[in-house]
């Protein structure tokens, strides 16, 4: 930080702290917006299908590799990949739900949890087999550009990601509120029998919801990769964070996922600042465990 390089004045001892904290908070908010986007997909799937998608992190990793592949092999910019990767992820999600996950429950939620866990293991280890555990990044002309805001220098890709996440959340909200598909999804989430009776094709709508949730991951992958990297295990870090956000915001709550994402982003940044990278992560898990134990309906969710 530039202010750190200035000779410190004996009177403004509090200033350097603030000069570190503000950029850190802003950074946390931009990271948190991406977390929110990932959590949005998870909460959509939970809200409609009442399943916890354990393969969420692994599918994010698939999206990241897709963006990386398009960039490195075909020279497509990660932001142009927004036209390709989210639709492809949507199709993948639709197929997974229709072909495998939907068939596995046998009437028990735990079975779905096990199947999505199994899928995540398969996807991750196939990626490990194909790509090895090397860390891959994309090289874009704007990767190291920064934007100044409140005296903090924020990486341009993170600022774009923040606004991209907001736009995606708005589009998703409009889709849910204003379209026939959105109405069908909400009807199914509320009352399955009733939705069936009025002629909603439940299998199809379930798969559409799952597809939409996975498409969110596709958007997140495009926005994330310019300032991040991809390895076969990259999803691990995100999956528990996304679960934390979803339980914090209330399972199935859109607004909750957005607010939860921002909170977790800031908590992580603060934890990293004061406790160091590794121990800082514990803060997230502690929040996760405490919320699940004492307020499983989340901050904004209804009683479960």
């Amino acid at each position: 930080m530039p202010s750190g390089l200035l000779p410190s004045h004996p009177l403004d001892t509090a200033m350097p702290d603030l000069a570190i904290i503000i950029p850190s908070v802003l950074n946390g908010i931009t990271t948190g917006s991406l977390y929110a986007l990932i959590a949005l997909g998870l909460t959509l799937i939970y809200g409609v299908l009442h399943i916890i998608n354990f393969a969420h992190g692994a599918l994010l990793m698939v999206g990241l590799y897709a963006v990386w592949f398009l960039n490195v092999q075909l020279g497509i910019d990660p932001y142009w990949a927004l036209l390709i990767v989210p639709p492809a992820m949507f199709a993948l999600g639709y197929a997974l739900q229709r072909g495998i996950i939907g068939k596995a429950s046998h009437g028990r939620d735990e079975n779905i949890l096990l199947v999505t866990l199994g899928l995540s293991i398969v996807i991750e280890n196939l990626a490990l087999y194909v790509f090895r555990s090397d860390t891959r990044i994309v090289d874009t002309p704007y990767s190291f550009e920064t934007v100044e805001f409140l005296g903090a220098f924020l990486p341009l890709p993170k600022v774009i990601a923040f606004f991209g996440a907001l736009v995606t959340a708005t589009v998703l909200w409009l889709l849910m509120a204003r379209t026939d598909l959105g109405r069908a999804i909400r009807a199914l989430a509320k009352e399955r029998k009733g939705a069936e009776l009025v002629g909603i094709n439940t299998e199809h709508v379930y798969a559409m919801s799952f597809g939409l949730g996975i498409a969110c991951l596709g958007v997140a992958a495009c926005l994330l990769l310019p300032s991040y990297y991809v390895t076969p295990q990259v999803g691990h870090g995100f999956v528990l964070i996304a679960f934390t956000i979803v339980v914090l915001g209330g399972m199935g709550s859109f607004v909750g996922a957005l607010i939860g994402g921002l909170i977790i982003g800031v908590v992580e940044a603060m934890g990293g600042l004061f406790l160091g990278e590794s121990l800082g992560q514990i803060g997230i898990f502690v929040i996760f465990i405490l919320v699940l134990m004492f307020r499983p309906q989340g901050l904004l969710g209804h009683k479960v």
Partner: protein
Amino acid sequence: MRQLLVLLAVFSAIAVLPAVITSEFSLNIVIMMLYAALLGQAWNILGGYGGQFSFGHAAYFGTGAYAVAVLQVQLGINPWIGMVAGALLAMAVAAFIGFATFRTGLRGSYFALVTLAFAEVLRILSNSVDFTGAGVGILIPLAPGPGNLQFETKTGFFFLIWSFTLAAFLAVWWIGHSRFGASLAAVRDNEEAARALGVNAFRVKMGAIILSGLFGGLAGVFYAQYFLYLDPYIAYGPAISVESLLVPIIGGMGTLFGPLLGAVALHTVSELTRELIGDVPGISLAIYGALLVGMVLFLPRGLAGIAARFTRRNKPAGTETRHA
């Protein structure tokens, strides 16, 4: 009684194996099968008989393993004492997790997620403190001798894991024939109904998780003494948690012999893939994952389910009607 006789006969037959098998390589496979059966039976107590699906059994495994390793390396305490300490600590961790989750009424997917998070917290902690060797890991010095819980030959280790595993199977046999086991199955099948009948669901689940933690911890103790090396990812990483649940799911949850069947099947498959494809990173775990998906999709009652379909008499307890 009949089941107990079958159990003792099977374990006596296994005990003869070191005399028959001369190659260290093959004996190692048998040892790994027994070890997987122990890990799987630990999970089966809580998951199969109790219906509480833990995604973080590495918490108990890793605690047992680190206890015996750290006490030996940092404090010079004999591993036999370390073994007892490891088992007790694993039970304490299980009691803590059980108290935190069951007291607040977490079940189903929520329980699975919280157990996973606890294992992750322990992994990060063991990665951040010095006495576990942090990310570098901890190496137990080689000192063969029964007094050091290390053995010159694989046969010694074989009987160590054989006795641990036998103890776990005897405990599960007892569960299947005791009032405690009946209460546990009642809580699994319908907790509200069980409560209405006067079952103390909290106490029953606590009993199951502590017993589960004991055997998970013993599996960790064995692992540490057998391989003499641990790091946070081995001890508390997801691989152990997955193997713990995969073994009884393949073999048959809530059955006495399920984990044994599952352990044999799993290690046969992983040895076969190693023969056919070689030691390629990722492939064996990818097959584990595919097995998990396939079993849940097509054989939700596991291999024991097939066996039960033909014999009808070894019917797994409580699989007829379940309310999630």
